[in-house]
């Protein structure tokens, strides 16, 4: 989750004070959009998609490690969210609810088919970095992503939600339906396994 959507645990104001957070961690602008959706305004859902598309896409990408599948899965996540939004009661933040859907979608996806190789051509090159430096960084990133993709399910989900989506242990526990202690244990093993898998090959 990017900093502008980090709603836990502290109240947050972004974009000129439009994104106030309620007691349950639900942003005011999310609440308005959700209520509009629940009253049948489909355009309001577009606003939610626009707000969270990048976070959901990035979470999916961490799972499948390629653009095409990440895009398909992110679409699926929003489709499921739209169908279930009538049941959303605001007990958690919208992003936490969305991530729970995303994690389940990712787990189902893995069961459905194998992960193909990444398609780099569809991504925007960072023109500022020198070519060699950029290639080395991309290669390093790719190796780490592959190692993350090989972690056991729970460890991978925990690592992605905690390290990349920047959620708290409590939020991760809520999404994965486990205790905070289990989340910490899975995170520790994920990090140790990552170090073991990459060894000295990637400079830390």
């Amino acid at each position, binding site marked *: 989750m990017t900093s502008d959507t980090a709603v836990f645990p502290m109240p947050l104001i972004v974009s000129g004070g439009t994104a106030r957070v309620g007691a349950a961690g639900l942003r005011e602008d999310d609440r308005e959009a959700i209520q509009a959706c629940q009253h049948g305004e489909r355009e309001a859902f*577009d606003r939610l998609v626009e707000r969270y598309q990048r976070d959901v896409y990035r979470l999916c990408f961490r799972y499948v490690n390629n653009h095409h599948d990440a895009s398909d899965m992110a679409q699926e996540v929003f489709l499921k969210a739209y169908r279930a939004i009538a049941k959303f009661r605001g007990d958690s933040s919208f992003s936490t609810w969305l991530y729970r859907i995303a994690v389940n979608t990712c787990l189902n996806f893995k069961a459905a088919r194998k992960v193909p190789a990444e398609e780099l051509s569809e991504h925007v090159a960072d023109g500022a970095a020198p070519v060699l430096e950029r290639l080395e960084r991309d290669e390093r990133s790719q190796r780490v992503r592959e190692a993350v993709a090989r972690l056991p399910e729970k460890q991978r989900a925990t690592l992605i939600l905690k390290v990349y989506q920047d959620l708290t242990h409590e939020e991760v526990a809520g999404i994965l339906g486990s205790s905070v202690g289990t989340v910490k244990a899975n995170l520790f093993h994920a990090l140790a*396994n990552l170090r073991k898998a990459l060894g000295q090959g990637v400079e830390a």
Partner: protein
Amino acid sequence: MRRVTGGHLGEDALIDLMDGVASADAREHAASCLHCRARLEQAVPGLELARQADVPEPSPLFWQSFRSQVDRRIAGRDPAPVWKRFAAGPWLAAAAAVLVAVALLLPRAPAPVSVAPSAPGLPAWSALPSADEDPGLDILAAVVPGAGGLGPLAECQGLGDCMTEAAALSEEETAVLTEALRRELGTES
């Protein structure tokens, strides 16, 4: 602070140490315990490594297209992605298996016996060629001294007489040869 067997720190306490929120007790233990420090040193670089993995940023045009696709799928104008359709495969296969099983268990009328049109008869097989085509007879005729053909052989009485007539063998040779031929042919004169 939760301790595991041997009085060492558990994973949750080690993560708290990494987060900088561990209790004073845990910090004190980690400072003096080689085992716990070694475990920490395994995990801390893992976090550094994990942070090196950037997700490539899609084209700015991608997001507009993405929202359009989500919108179309919500409106039901776009099919599910291929992987989603494949996910229904096992259920379809199970349904097909049930249908096949039901079809096999249903009582059926005996199938009508079809009579195939008679095919032209095949020639009977014979290990021996016809007399006209048998080169062995020509060879036999060639080795019979003074014979112009099979005439004398056709007229002889019994196998022994034929052999005597054809090869002018001695009586003893004829007897041995006759016996051998009888054994070979399984016949008695």
